[in-house]
């Protein structure tokens, strides 16, 4: 997902080794239809990420962010 581009959440699928993640991600706002945006990456390694979800900003690991399936939004829509 490219930096600063908006997308909308399709679904959250937790990996088998961390099934509790889907609930946790939902609680902090990763719910279907919610708007998300990648705001930045840490250096070195590009992990963790700064993610805007709805009105809030969260730091997520790449592995955590990978659970969230998104669909790109048109830039014009914003």
């Amino acid at each position, binding site marked *: 997902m490219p930096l600063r581009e908006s997308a909308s959440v399709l679904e959250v699928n937790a990996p088998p*080794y*961390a099934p509790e*993640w889907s*609930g946790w991600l939902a609680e902090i706002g990763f719910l*279907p239809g919610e708007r998300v945006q990648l705001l930045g990456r840490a250096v070195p390694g590009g992990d963790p990420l700064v993610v805007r979800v709805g009105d*809030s900003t969260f730091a997520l690991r790449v592995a955590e962010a990978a659970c969230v399936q998104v669909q790109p939004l048109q830039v014009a829509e914003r």
Partner: protein
Amino acid sequence: MNEAVVHIHRGGPLLALVGNPNCGKTALFNRLTGSRQKVGNYAGVTVERKEGQFSSPAGRALRLLDLPGAYSLNPRSPDESVTVDVLRGNARGEKRPDLVVCVVDATQLRRNLRLVLAVKRLGLPCVVALNMADLAEKRGIVVDAEALGRELGLTVVRTVAVRPDGTDALRELLDQPEVWHYQRLPGDVRDLAPEVDPRGDHAAVHGILDRLGLAEVAPHLASDRIDRVVLHPLVGPLLLALILFLVFQAVFAWAEAPMGWIEAATAAAGEAVAAQLPQGLLRSFLVDGLIAGLGGVLVFLPQIVILFFFILLLEESGYLPRAAFLLDRIMGSVGLSGRSFIPLLSSFACAIPGIMAARTIANPRDRLVTILIAPLMTCSARLPVYALLISAFVPQREVWGGVELQGLVLFGLYLAGIVTAMAVAWLLKLLTAGRQVRTLMMELPSYHWPQARNIAIGLWQRVKIFLRRVGGIILVLTVALWALASFPAPPEGATGPAVAYSLAGTLGRALALLFEPIGFNWQISIALVPGLAAREVAVSALATVYALSATGDDAAGVLAPLLAQDWSLATALSLLAWFVAAPMCLSTLAAIKRETGSWKMAGIAAAYLTALAYALAFVTYRVALALGGG
């Protein structure tokens, strides 16, 4: 923060503040109750419990409970469990609240309102405090409180916790009898209520925001601009290092004057008492034991206050989670997550709140490792020892550009603690991590101007806790040590200092055999015994030992030059190294026991820290000797 469980069952209905983390709940609590707060623990768990009192405009006395922040009523940490238990009326020793005040951040309605709906379903009378409404308006989010209230079926009032009159509407609301009764949920909200599936509430909140015209996501311009600098790949880490360095410089530089006053006051008190009393046991007890011991600990209060001040400032402004973000990668390399940063940073003030703060780490292994290495962070109790030795052995001069050599050495000692902790964590990673799943998922709240009032209240609570320790365990130990150092009295015609003939002298000499390979003399060995109970006691113990073996009466002022004269540089360095890993104080061990639920972990921590301290001191001493520091 190791106070006993407090139960206040005084009159007045009980209100509970509930809200997401970072919604301004505690600021609202501070605004409502001011200084009328009691900080303690919930029964059976070590979650911090804050209760305060205030009164409604009509003069009704009310009790207010500040519940830990929660994202939902499906708890994922002990803190969130407490919130849920109290709200359900299941918490041991807690009354179920008569009224819940749901605090929502007006800039984060989307996430905050889900919790309101869940709380409302619990069947308690409930009102909503629409907090930070002023900030929301600046961002173009205008919330119609009345319309929101109609949607939720709850009374909604606007609050601005940062303004003195910002809670007037809430106070007035509490005089209306109808808010104290449970209000029925509107139909469409009640139907979407599956407790296990937050999507039901999500849809309800969406509907509400749509109807209020708040469905658009508003950009956070100011916070994003700051984040572009603070979280910048290159500038961010440099800024963090600079901030931490300035904090430690300030701890040393600003504390100098007040420390001088406390020293002078201690000396004056000692002289005044000495002038009133005849030479003898009582005078020796009061002047050398009580006043010198207490003064030697109190003198470090300014440094502790300054360090806590900066930690609170960073916490209030919203910078701390950013620092955790920046450090996540480094922490990851030793098998921890950025979440461990906040407990570890708190440990710089005191390991006990640090160990307690480790509760926010969901992963049990990470939590345990964080607890085990927290005592390696240079807590403020070590500052007295460092400060004493640095002022005695490190010349006071500027190295470059206003940076003092003494400050630099102190910074080095802090760094040594961090590096040691990282090494231990790395070792534990090799031994225990295996295939580990670590969770970060940490909120980066919007930046806020820190409020002087919140910082003042937070600071006062921490000072009280420190003083209680001085008043309790430290005082008892100091007096016990004075007794050890005074009895038995030296035989008639003895030539050496009196302490050499005492029980303490005998014990110290026995221990000195053990500590001789790392360069400690018997005076240090004596001081280390009570120092195991609480680190800062080592200084007052040294003061007692040296005041008693010196001829003069005043202890605080003469200690540093005395040490400079009496100890070799290698010994001083070795003692500094010892204290980098210093076996922890008893209260830290007790905190570890409480948090891990077993003495085994506390025992492991004590054993490994002692071995580490001995090894570090041994290497330092031998290297210093080889380089001619003897």
